[in-house]
């Protein structure tokens, strides 16, 4: 087999795998509906809608009660 043929097969296999992964991801999104932290994917829209500096994060990085000064609850 020439290098060009190898490349072509390699390319096909890679594409195929990526397609499988992508469809797997779609399947995961629509069956699980929540991510590993149990947060509904759709609620992530609130990261944009409630984005004032003293709005509560959708899922805070640290679990401090009051993450920073001036935060309203």
């Amino acid at each position, binding site marked *: 087999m020439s290098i060009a043929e190898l490349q072509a097969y390699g390319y096909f296999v890679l594409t195929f795998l990526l397609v499988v992964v*992508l469809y797997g991801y779609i399947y995961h999104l629509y069956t699980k*509906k929540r*991510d590993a932290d149990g947060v509904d994917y759709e609620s992530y829209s609130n990261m*944009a809608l409630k984005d004032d500096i*003293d709005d509560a994060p959708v899922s805070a*990085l640290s679990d401090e009660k009051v993450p*920073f*000064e001036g935060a309203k609850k």
Partner: protein
Amino acid sequence: MENRPLEYDYTIAKMFMLTTIAFGIVGMLIGVILAFQLAFPGLNLILGDGLAEYTNFSRLRPLHTDAVIFGFTLSGVFATWYYVGQRVLKVSMAESRLLMTLGKLHFWLYVIVVAAAVYSLFAGVTTSKEYAEFEWPIDVGVVVVWVIFGMSMFGLIGIRREKSLYISVWYYIATFLGIAMLYLFNNMEIPTYFVTSPAGESGIGAWYHSVSMYAGTNDALVQWWYGHNAVAFGFTVPIVAMIYYFLPKESGQAIYSYKLSLLSFWGLMFVYLWAGGHHLLYSTVPDWMQTMGSIFSIVLILPSWGSAINMLLTMKGEWQQVAASPLIKFMVLGSTFYMFSTLEGPIQAIKSVNAIAHFTDWIVGHVHDGVLGWVGFMIMASLYHMAPRVFKREIYSKSLMAAQFWIQTLGVVLYFSSMWIAGITQGMMWRAHDEFGNLAYSFIDTVTVLHPYYAIRGVGGLLYLVGFLMFAYNIYKTMSSRPVEERELQSASPMGA
């Protein structure tokens, strides 16, 4: 020190807003000049024979493309990043002196590099690779600016309070990584100083000249892998980042389907990189690569429309907002133009269609329904949304914005419709032949026929520029209009009459 409540710090965003507008005016003005030069060639000598070197079409064309891409569009990307980034990560630039310093450094180095680029292009110094015209010293500057942008971006992400990254941030990160990779690989070049010709001469040309590391077909392949993905990561990905933030925010509506936005993201990343071959149809690159370019171009409709439809559906049940707010109009029409150019592109990528379309004005039409209708509209809309928030004042005039919307929409329509007709006419005339295979027309025949369409395109472009000046004026006046209260800024932007 007084204990003030924490606020987002928009210093850097404001600086980049300024350059977005300034480079927008310069770039589009040159575009309009180019358009009229094509219609009326005498304009090449507009400042007399002595300055013809600087005013001719070929000297100005790369200035147009690079000013609107690396000046206008990139500034818009930076301005919105320094605004959106803080907000969706819920962290202020003011919290880190390092990030503020990086941001300022980012801005000033960027301005210096742009100035150097403009100077060198005017002087006629170019590598003659489209969208990659800068010579190596400027490339080095570009890389430094980009690295600082990256540090500043990941620095902000590093100190965030929100655990997950909002979808727009994904797109901004992809912009950063995509352009870094493309720019580096396509601009691999060797200063001529180090090159020896086959005849044995060395030290050829000025110190700032260089030759590409690739040759022939390889050079073409790398160039269009770059060129196409510059469209992907400059004109699509960061603009999608903008619409995913600004449309929901301005309309107060949650994204129709956040899941769809995630899968369109991966779909787009996966498909875009393989489609560059459609710029090289019927060239010397391997046939399978051309076919692949065509196929992936068609598949690209799906993730593109995935995002665009998601945005239109976000407005579901809220269409009265489109009628009521010129700002929403810009975004909804932007999204529609995005769908339009991502349908047109795949059609042009079909080999038999490309046989007619390639080298013609139809391509230029495709380019500008994308950049004017989608990129330009979204950047202006984003800045309009930001203005009341960064200046804490209402937008100076709603009616001016509405007038601008209609003028520019008319401009875009005139631009692309004239180029469609011109392009297809051109394509058909070039290939027309008699029964013996003799060409039916000479090149100048097509030029004569196309003249009216070039004039119409010039008018369309001029309208768009006029609209852009109205935008600049509106933003300028906003800085001194009525101050607004915090609560007025929740969703729809406050606007004066």
